[in-house]
């Protein structure tokens, strides 16, 4: 007798299964992993700046992080959900290696391993398992791990050396482009922002300090094109995200007569490309309808610009993605309605356009490049004897007011000596007799701050710059 089974639904299925999508994602990430190993591992080793362990550190970090997130979900699956024990099953149904992989790639090179493990545990437990595993989490698990690491261990990481690997500490000796940008209150000039790291090409190819995998925009674009070709990515999100940041920073830049280099600098720094292409498009936590993806991308851009300019948190990309993850469900539903009637969505798009213009103008105006009067700088006395003018000035330091005497001779700083201060980190400034660095300098932009006493040294630098500006009239 014929054995006929009733089956359900369409009897043809595409070959492009979730497994293929995830494998493609992995393939797109491989160049980035290799480059981060090259930049943070091999280059310092060749220049004799790091040991074998430090050379392999990037790979070790990635391996440890991947292992922890995989093992947590594996244990949870076996002990609580009584799932089969073979590894293959877990690899195929949980894809738990990706939170670990992404977390490692967005962490600074000098993150102590135990912090990495804690971060991986948090991103796996709080980021994914508590919400119900693959497909149910609301926030991007890797970013949750990174967020908790920032809020809890930010200080320990910076003390351990922060973002710079051993080669970069001597070669460039500045912090990442964005945290260096944070010290400059204004829009910033080309040579203040870009020159210390070489040209914009360095930014593009990623030979700038930054998190493990975040820096190379070129490889991110390569990965993006591969994923678009394989139809494994929501391409609308990165394009609208980077586009909005570019547009807003272009408006801000052009209002302060900074040409096209300024928006390019802004999008190439701060891990925007990696964030936009790999973190914001994590399928589970991003919108599904095309219109919602566009709106999601634009809001991400707006939030990132707000974070970069109006708050002092350099991790703009990370926080804006997480914030937008909260609203994905709402926007997605609006996106689904919008496929039939444009009323509701039109209002939202209008609000976005107003936000983009409004914020850019507001930022451009408040972050004026012209010498704005530094509120906490004032000149107590100023006398000119024969050809030297001595200033007694005060500037707000880390925890106290710094009073200093500055002698200017034929428009160069002759001498600076600090009269009064009780900044807690002042001892560091004194040891490196930082003050002598200003000797016969007519321009202070390229004097670096003292690591470990950034705020105090920046205050002295501001003090000198304001005196020079005042002297130049």
């Amino acid at each position, binding site marked *: *007798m*014929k*054995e*006929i*089974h*009733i*089956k*359900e*639904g*369409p*009897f*043809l*299925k*595409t070959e*492009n*299964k*979730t497994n*293929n*999508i995830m494998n493609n994602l992995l393939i797109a990430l491989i160049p980035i992993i290799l480059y981060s190993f090259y930049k943070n591992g091999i280059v310092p080793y060749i220049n004799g700046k790091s040991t074998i362990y430090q050379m392999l550190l990037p790979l070790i970090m990635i391996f440890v992080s991947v292992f922890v997130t995989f093992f947590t979900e594996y244990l949870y699956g076996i002990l609580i959900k009584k799932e089969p024990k073979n590894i293959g099953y877990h690899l*195929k*149904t949980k894809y738990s290696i990706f939170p670990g992989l992404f977390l490692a790639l967005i962490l600074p090179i000098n993150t102590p391993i135990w912090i990495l493990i804690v971060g991986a545990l948090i991103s796996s437990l709080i980021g994914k398992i508590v919400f119900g*595993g*693959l*497909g*149910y989490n609301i926030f991007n698990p890797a970013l949750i791990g990174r967020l908790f690491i920032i809020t809890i261990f930010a200080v320990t990481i910076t003390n351990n050396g922060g973002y710079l690997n051993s080669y970069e500490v001597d070669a460039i000796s500045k912090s990442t482009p964005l945290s260096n940008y944070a010290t400059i209150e204004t829009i910033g000039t080309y040579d203040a922002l870009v020159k210390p790291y070489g040209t914009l090409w360095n930014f593009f190819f990623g030979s700038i300090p930054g998190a493990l995998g975040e820096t190379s925009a070129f490889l991110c674009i390569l990965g993006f094109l591969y994923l678009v070709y394989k*139809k494994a990515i*929501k391409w609308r999100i990165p394009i609208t995200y980077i586009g909005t940041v570019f547009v807003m920073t272009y408006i801000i830049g052009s209002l302060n007569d900074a040409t096209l280099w300024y928006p390019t600098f802004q999008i190439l720094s701060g891990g925007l490309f990696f964030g936009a292409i790999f973190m914001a498009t994590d*399928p*589970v936590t*991003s*919108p*599904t*309808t*095309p219109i919602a*993806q566009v709106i999601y991308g634009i809001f991400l851009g707006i939030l990132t610009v707000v974070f970069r300019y109006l708050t002092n948190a350099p991790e703009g990309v990370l926080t804006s993605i997480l914030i937008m993850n909260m609203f994905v*469900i709402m926007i*997605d*539903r609006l*996106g*689904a*309605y919008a*496929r*039939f009637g444009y009323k509701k969505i039109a209002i939202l798009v209008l609000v976005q356009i107003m936000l983009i213009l409004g914020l850019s103008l507001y930022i451009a105006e408040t972050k004026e490049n012209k010498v704005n009067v530094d509120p906490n700088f004032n000149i107590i006395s100023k006398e000119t004897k024969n050809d030297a003018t001595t200033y007694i000035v005060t500037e707000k330091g880390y925890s106290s007011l710094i009073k200093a005497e500055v002698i200017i001779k034929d428009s160069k700083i002759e001498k600076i000596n600090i009269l009064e201060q009780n900044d807690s980190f002042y001892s560091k400034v004194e040891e490196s007799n930082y003050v002598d660095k200003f000797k016969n300098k007519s321009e202070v932009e390229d004097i670096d701050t003292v690591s470990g006493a950034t705020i105090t040294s920046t205050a002295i630098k501001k003090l000198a710059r304001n005196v020079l500006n005042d002297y130049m009239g």
Partner: protein
Amino acid sequence: MALHLPKYKKKTLEHSLAKYMRPNYVYIPLINAGDTNITVLVQKGDYVNKGSIVGRRKGTFKIPILSSVSGIVVGFEEHICYNGEKVKCVKIENDFKDSELNVKKSKKITDFSKKEFLEIIKEKGIIGMGGAGFPTYAKYDTKRKINTLIVNAVECEPYITADQILGLNFTEEILEAIDAILTINEIEECYIAVKKNNSELINAFNNHIGTYLRVKLFLVDDMYPMGWERMLVKKIIKEDYDRLPIELGVVINNISTIYAIYSALKYNRALTERTVTFAGEMLKAPQNIVVKVGTPVKEIIESIEGYKRAKDITFIAGGPMMGTSLPSDDLIITPNLNCVLVIKSPVNELALPCIRCGKCVQVCPAKLSPVIIKDNLNNIETLKKLNTDKCIECGSCSYICPSRLNIRECVKLAKEKIKEVR
């Protein structure tokens, strides 16, 4: 917006159009377009001719149900129909005489009046043969001006080649019928929608189309579900209608329906046979066969050397995308069944949780968002706002879903929930 599917059409086209005209018993199903309240006009023991009335549908569309053979009514039995349900059928023993009443050599088919035209295609039981089985006369019976006729020869479902092989073998007759319909109903123009890469059909039409000025070919790209009425009208007329294409003065007919109209007008013959594709890797000789309505499919399959092996089969009435899987091969041919598909039972793969990749949203031809519908299954208000009732259950979303979720079932469930509430 639409899906690119593998075609699997070569195998059945290699075989020429066969015939299976001599079933011993015929079971005429008392159903039309899913509606089974039909008045039965015959009892056991009556003698019926080929094409004579066996029942008539109650309600607005009073379309007759006709017998496809001459013989004696033996009784009534229940058999499975295309939608998978058991339907009451009139069992007629075939006396192989095929005697037909008043088959007259009718006059030139273009000089029927509109009223006569409507009368004939109603009495001869002409219904849509694309799949819905909607009575054709109702499409033409309208006060509104019809300015375009679209002949749907797209056949976008894989495996099915019935329309194509019909078009290849009876090209002149079809064009003649189109011309007749255009003159009778004063329709200005007619588009025959054919797939771009269906070169044989295009060539077949091109060498005959010259003589008919009002008939033009319209090439559509090879996407699924391009054969869907709404999508075809949008493509050709560039406008969208609310509920019925007649609002834009457009009538759409499947190419097989046109051929049925032709044989009704020309030979005054009822819709009692149709070409059905028998396809699928589990059939020894997949091919197209002209069969009589009411013939049991089991008999036909045995006549074409049957199944490759009898184990682990899935028997589908209709195409792979919109067809329904039946519990047994006790299926009866009805006018709107265009394909019988016999394949190896697909192994049910491990369904992963939905990773919200958004592919089903991009691929839905009715612009719905299946994943959002799946999320709001217990919120009727949102389901209504998401226009869930517009879903045509074409299966594109389940096809494309990388996590192998049968998302069409979710949307179907949502549709039922809305119906319950209304």
